[in-house]
């Protein structure tokens, strides 16, 4: 990349949280200026290819999720299906800066994280279809994606339950004196579970090398965050109780997320102490595929956030800064479609598990 072509460097991913007394529209954007919608940051610290690759991954997630939705309607995907649509910039920004040796633990809204981590698209899709070739042999399903070899430790369906698990993985790293970072994802709603508090305290008092990554999408199922916490979407004071460093970042801006996370990862790796990252984001669709998502929130609110859709704003920016041409993006879109189509074919053609497999994997 020619230095003269360098995009303007985003100074920081840290944004100030919403303050009281803001307008309803501002509130529904969680403190962001909706006019910033077309301008996610870019950065010189990330090379061009990587900036483009990040877009491809975001698109891969978006198309994967849309495809899962279609196959849910067709009855190929069953159970609960929680789509990640709208939050792609957060997952990609958070996960791409991790090293292969780092660990990821997440919740049920996990396909995006799995794809971001580079888990095999075919095998994720096969798991969605409940097939023998799925990552969890068809036993886990959408909410329980695992790839232990890639240090992707699930996919957990009980709100908040993944947090202690992640702390334990981080504890093992401290014990083994590795420099491995553990990143655990959870939602705004999960902060209401006791495990959130207990785990943060553990991580704080034991100084565990862990990143608590909260995807604040303003709703826990149908509950606006303001209805379940007095301070609503403002999480800035939460960490005071634990003395854990806190970073707040625009979750619709993939580069901002990536830079803030990279800084956090470097710090955790070097110092071994925990960091809390809050990404302000939004899911464009319902909580799960069963939820139209329009009962408890206004169309206008969704609209405002959709204006900041990273799948629109980010490629716009890539073009604007000459990091990709429309032809590049078209190619990339085609390759993503091909990858998804292949995954669907793989999943469709994969065998069902043998009935006997139901009795495997209970004990080691």
């Amino acid at each position, binding site marked *: 990349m020619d230095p003269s072509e360098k995009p303007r460097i985003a100074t920081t991913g840290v944004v100030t949280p919403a303050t009281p007394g803001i307008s309803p529209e501002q509130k529904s954007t969680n403190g962001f200026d909706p006019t910033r919608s077309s301008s996610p940051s870019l950065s010189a610290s990330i090379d061009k290819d990587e900036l483009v690759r990040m877009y491809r991954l975001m698109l891969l997630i978006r198309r994967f999720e849309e495809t899962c939705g279609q196959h849910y309607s067709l009855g190929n995907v*069953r*159970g*609960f299906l929680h789509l990640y649509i709208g939050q792609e910039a957060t997952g990609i920004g958070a996960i791409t800066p991790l090293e292969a040796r780092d660990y990821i633990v997440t919740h049920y809204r996990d396909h995006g994280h799995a794809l971001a981590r580079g888990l095999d698209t075919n095998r994720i899709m096969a798991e969605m279809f*409940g*097939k023998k070739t799925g990552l*969890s042999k*068809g*036993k*886990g*399903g*959408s*909410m*329980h994606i695992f790839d232990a070899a890639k240090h992707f430790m699930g996919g*957990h*369906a*009980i*709100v*908040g*339950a993944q947090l202690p698990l992640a702390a334990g993985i981080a504890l093992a790293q401290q014990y083994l004196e590795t420099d491995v970072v553990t990143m655990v994802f959870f939602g705004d*709603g*999960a902060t*209401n*579970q*006791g495990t959130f508090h207990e785990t943060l305290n553990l991580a704080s008092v034991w100084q565990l090398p862990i990143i608590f990554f909260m995807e604040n999408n303003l709703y*826990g*199922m*149908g*509950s606006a965050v303001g*209805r*379940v*916490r007095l301070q609503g979407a403002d999480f800035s004071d939460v960490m005071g109780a634990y003395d854990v460093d806190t970073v707040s970042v625009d979750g619709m801006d993939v580069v901002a997320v990536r830079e803030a996370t990279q800084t956090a990862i470097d710090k955790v790796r070097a110092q071994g102490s925990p960091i809390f990252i809050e990404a302000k984001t939004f899911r464009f669709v319902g909580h799960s595929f069963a939820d139209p998502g329009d*009962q*408890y929130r206004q169309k206008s609110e969704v609209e405002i956030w959709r204006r900041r859709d990273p799948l629109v704003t980010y490629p716009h920016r890539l073009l604007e800064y000459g990091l990709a041409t429309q032809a590049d993006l078209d190619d990339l879109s085609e390759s993503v479609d091909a990858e998804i189509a292949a995954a669907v074919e793989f999943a469709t053609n994969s065998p*069902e*598990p043998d*009935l006997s*497999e*139901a*009795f495997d994997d*209970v004990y080691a």
Partner: protein
Amino acid sequence: MAEITIREAITQGLAEAIETDESVFIMGEDIGEYGGAYSITKGFLEKYGAQRIKDTPISEAAFVGAGIGAAAAGLRPVVELMSMSFSLVAFDQIVNMAANLRYMSGGQIKVPMVIRAPTGAGVQLGATHSQSFETWLAEVPGIYCACPSNPHDALGLLRSSIKSDNPVIFAEHSHLYGSRGDVPDDYYEIPLGEGKVARSGEDLTMVSYGYGVHILEQAAEQMAQDGVDAEIIDLRSLSPVDYDTIVASVQKTGRAVMLDTARRTGGIMSEVVSEVQERAMDYLDGPVMRVGSKDVPWPYNRNLEQDILAQSDDVIKAARKIISF
């Protein structure tokens, strides 16, 4: 007399309680604005207001505990859990607090609270979301447990549960919400602990509850074609268990199959089998057979899950072991 679904029966029971008893209120995740994960309380918030219909944070331990406290202070909370599986995070509050408070205080405290939750496997939700912890909770002294199999019982049991001065676990099998049946227009209650002979027969006693009763009905029909006349007992409550009705039936038939839709091991039928073989041994022509779902975690894949679930074929197979047909 109207034909309604179990979902409607529960909705009706809740609405009725709110309208007739000021001390009744409902509390749970997304029961208000969202209308309930299974739409049981749809429209309630608008109709009854936020005092009676309380949306909670995702804090089961705290809001179940708050229900206990509100009950101890004289109210009649009906607490909804989105899934019986989530009771685990509130287990200490239910088992140690709700169940023990009265005893530990020498009878000073009453806990008139209902904890309602959808339960059961069969919709591919996987290992953590398909469990039936009502079978454990029913074993705890101080707790009652109701598991209706039809709209009539759902309404009658819900009325008794809300009126009970004790904590009641009200387990609603998620397969049954759409299940239809007649419900009388006149007020009635079904006492906790009263089972029912759902089908009378001479050759074999079959016992279950909730969705299991429907499986038994299938099995009974099929067996009837083979000339076996099975009696079906619908427990309706897992605590207290109506042993008198079961034992009377076994004394008549001499043979018994007990069905849990939950896992065979750890299901309530382990209790029932143990007790019944002890009480009715002299009348038994063979062992009391216990059928349940297979003893593995719940898988996501549909074939595996269906294979693990207790089915009418398993019941018939068990029946064959103690009776030739």
